[in-house]
């Protein structure tokens, strides 16, 4: 979709900010390259570029637009963020640092001590650290708060043991948020604590996971007496911190994750995706009725994904839609995407499951194998959340909330 700026709406102060941003970025930031993935943790050079970009923004007084000044930010408004986004359109931004902005800063602003905030937030704005979120566990699946990684105090240190998984960019991260169980005799949600850990230290093994489509953006960590650096919030008060973390993740997902990447910027016209049209032409089926129906439907589905995300963002901003709409938009996006992939595979026929010997995976077929992963939880959890929090339907019957965690049936210790 074409993007136009909203410069005509600028106040004089806003316009000054716009011109400052425009001037600083020109020539200093890497160009936005169409088709380049916004994250690819296997591309170490790109990760390094993004760290540098963040430093350039810091040097230009453009880092942390809405972050309070006392923590190194600019203390400006959402409107300034939009202006920055418009001016940043020609450039690649520090997209691998998305966790810092979307998750860690909001979590720290809400729960960290003054000292923690003053130490860690400016470092993020300078691009010194990439932060990871270590939340999910192999034994846990969608039951996030059923985690079994243990933290124990020994000789004045908190030592963590267990395994975490689905950590985006774990291998390249410097710091991590790590939720662990500190008291298994308390009910499930009550015995958790949020730790801050250094990712590169003895006892921490980080292993990238290869997924079915060949990407390696996620990692698994094995923690063997890993020493925690600090605690965010209270001991056994981790659930509150993690809730902020999850809410921040949902909100960021519906906003589009990072300024300049996403769906939240105003678009003026519907974008016609090139892929289905090109595929129909390349395959020589552009004149058959069914191919034309498929191409038209794929165009519709892609537009719908964009429109539903925009609507959610606009509604939340205006206060006419509840924040839970973010999950609804995620689910819609996933469903629409799956249907599009099904149609593209039909369009390609046998050409979708084979390709030149030297190429990568046959594109259409692998799209059917590869599921569109929903950040922040599986589709099933999203449906639970939507039905209970967005639609207000009753929760299911289940083991009581007050049962001590060590009496629950878990994957590590099956009930007998």
């Amino acid at each position, binding site marked *: 979709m074409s993007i136009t700026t909203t410069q005509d709406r600028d106040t004089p102060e806003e316009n000054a900010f716009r011109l400052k941003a425009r001037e600083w970025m020109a020539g200093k930031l890497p160009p936005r390259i169409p088709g380049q993935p916004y994250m690819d943790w296997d591309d170490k050079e790109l990760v390094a570029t993004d760290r540098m970009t963040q430093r350039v923004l810091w040097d230009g007084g453009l880092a942390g637009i809405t972050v309070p000044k006392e923590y190194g930010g600019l203390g400006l408004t959402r409107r300034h963020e939009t202006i920055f986004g418009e001016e940043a359109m020609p450039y690649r931004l520090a997209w691998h640092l998305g966790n810092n902005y979307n998750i860690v800063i909001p979590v720290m602003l809400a729960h960290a001590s003054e000292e923690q905030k003053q130490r860690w937030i400016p470092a993020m704005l300078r691009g010194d650290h990439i932060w990871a979120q270590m939340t999910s566990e192999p034994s846990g699946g969608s039951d996030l708060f059923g985690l079994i990684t243990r933290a124990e105090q020994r000789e004045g240190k908190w030592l963590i043991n267990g395994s975490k998984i689905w950590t985006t960019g774990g291998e390249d991260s410097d710091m991590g948020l790590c939720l662990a169980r500190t008291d298994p005799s308390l009910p499930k949600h009550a015995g958790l604590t949020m730790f801050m850990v250094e990712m590169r230290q003895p006892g921490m093994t980080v292993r990238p996971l290869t997924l079915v489509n060949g990407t390696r953006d996620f990692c698994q960590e094995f923690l063997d007496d890993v020493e925690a650096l600090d605690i965010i919030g209270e001991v056994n008060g981790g659930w509150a911190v993690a809730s902020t973390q999850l809410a921040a993740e949902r909100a960021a997902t519906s906003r589009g994750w990072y300024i300049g990447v996403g769906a939240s910027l105003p678009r003026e016209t519907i974008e016609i995706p090139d892929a289905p049209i090109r595929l129909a032409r390349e395959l020589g089926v552009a004149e058959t009725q069914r191919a034309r129906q498929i191409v038209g439907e794929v165009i*519709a589905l892609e537009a719908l994904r964009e429109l539903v995300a925009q609507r959610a963002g606009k509604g939340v901003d205006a206060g006419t839609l509840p924040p839970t709409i973010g999950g609804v938009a995620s689910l819609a996006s996933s469903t629409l995407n799956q249907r599009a992939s099904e149609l593209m595979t039909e369009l390609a026929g046998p050409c979708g499951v084979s390709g030149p010997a030297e190429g990568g995976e046959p594109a259409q077929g692998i799209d059917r194998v590869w599921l569109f992963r929903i950040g922040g939880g599986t589709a099933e959890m999203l449906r639970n959340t939507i039905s209970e929090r967005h*639609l207000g339907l009753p929760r299911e019957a289940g083991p009581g909330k007050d049962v001590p965690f060590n009496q629950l049936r878990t994957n590590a210790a099956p009930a007998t």
Partner: protein
Amino acid sequence: MDVVLSENQTLLQQATRRFVEARHTVSQTRKLADAGETMAKQAWADCAAQGWIGLFVPGEHGGMAAEAEGVIDAAIVAEELGRQVYAGPFASNAVAAFAIAKSGSAGQQAQFLPSLASGDMTATNCFAGTGAQDGLAPTGLTATRSDGGYRIDGAAGFVENAAGAGLFIATACAGEALSQFLVAADHPGVTIEPLRALDLGRSLAIVRFDGVQVGADALLGAPGSGAAAFERQLQVALVLQCSETIGLIDRAFEFTLEWVRQRNAFGRPIGSFQALKHRLADHTAEFEAAKAAVAYAAKAVQNNAGDAAIAVSIAKSQCGKQGVEIIRDCVQMHGGIGLTWEHDLHFYLRRAVANQSLLGTPAMHHERIAALAGL
């Protein structure tokens, strides 16, 4: 409708809801259907007095177009009417008024717009031929030059609210180009053949033009300029149809949520069963996409934007499909009671199916999108 409405739009929405819930609920539609009747002329005039048609009519002809965002405002009305499966000739008259206001001569505007705005007369478009693949192009009529005027022949299918209409907008093939004509319903050679409609609150007919001789003054717009005008009218009609579907889903979903919350089975509300909850979550997501698409399309058509044509087809694709899927599942979640004649749900579902199939099926719109995208 859009997630951000202006103050005027909010007032229009609230006023329409109050009016319809007081006077034109689905029970009224049921009564008319049971009696085999269509809405009485006076009842329609009362509706028109709400200003619904006037949204497209300039002030000097009794309307309020200057203060209105015609297409978006009419879409707000259509959505409210959908919520009660309203049975009057709203959309057909709104599109006719739009057509005459945009393309009519000063004389035509003065002659027809006041009575359309007041509801004293109704008019309707002949959008399609009579075949299974019709709905997106005026394939049924031809016009040939004759006696200093034109002779119109052919048949238009699926014409809404033709019975009782005073005026037809006929789009006819004249050689290579399309021309539009205003033809009085009592013009010699015009016959109306009522159809039975699945939608019990909808009047459909075939309108036959058998050597209908009209003067050049019957032309709506310049001769041969009909294609662009037809496309614009079709866009407005699609925005209203899709908005109505949004209203249908909105209300059906609303009372389904109420139902699953209060209905018990196996000692607990059926709305606590995960299988139902997950389906309702999926419907919420699809419905949200439908709402986003219709709001976008209404604005694009209102602004005559470059992507208006593609936007209405995207809206139709999603509303056509999900209107039926979501309301069907609402019926399913009601259990047996949802299958009875006495329950209102089938009125909603019938209209959703009709809205899926009229003015182009989703599949026809997919083909249209491909063509618009340059394939």
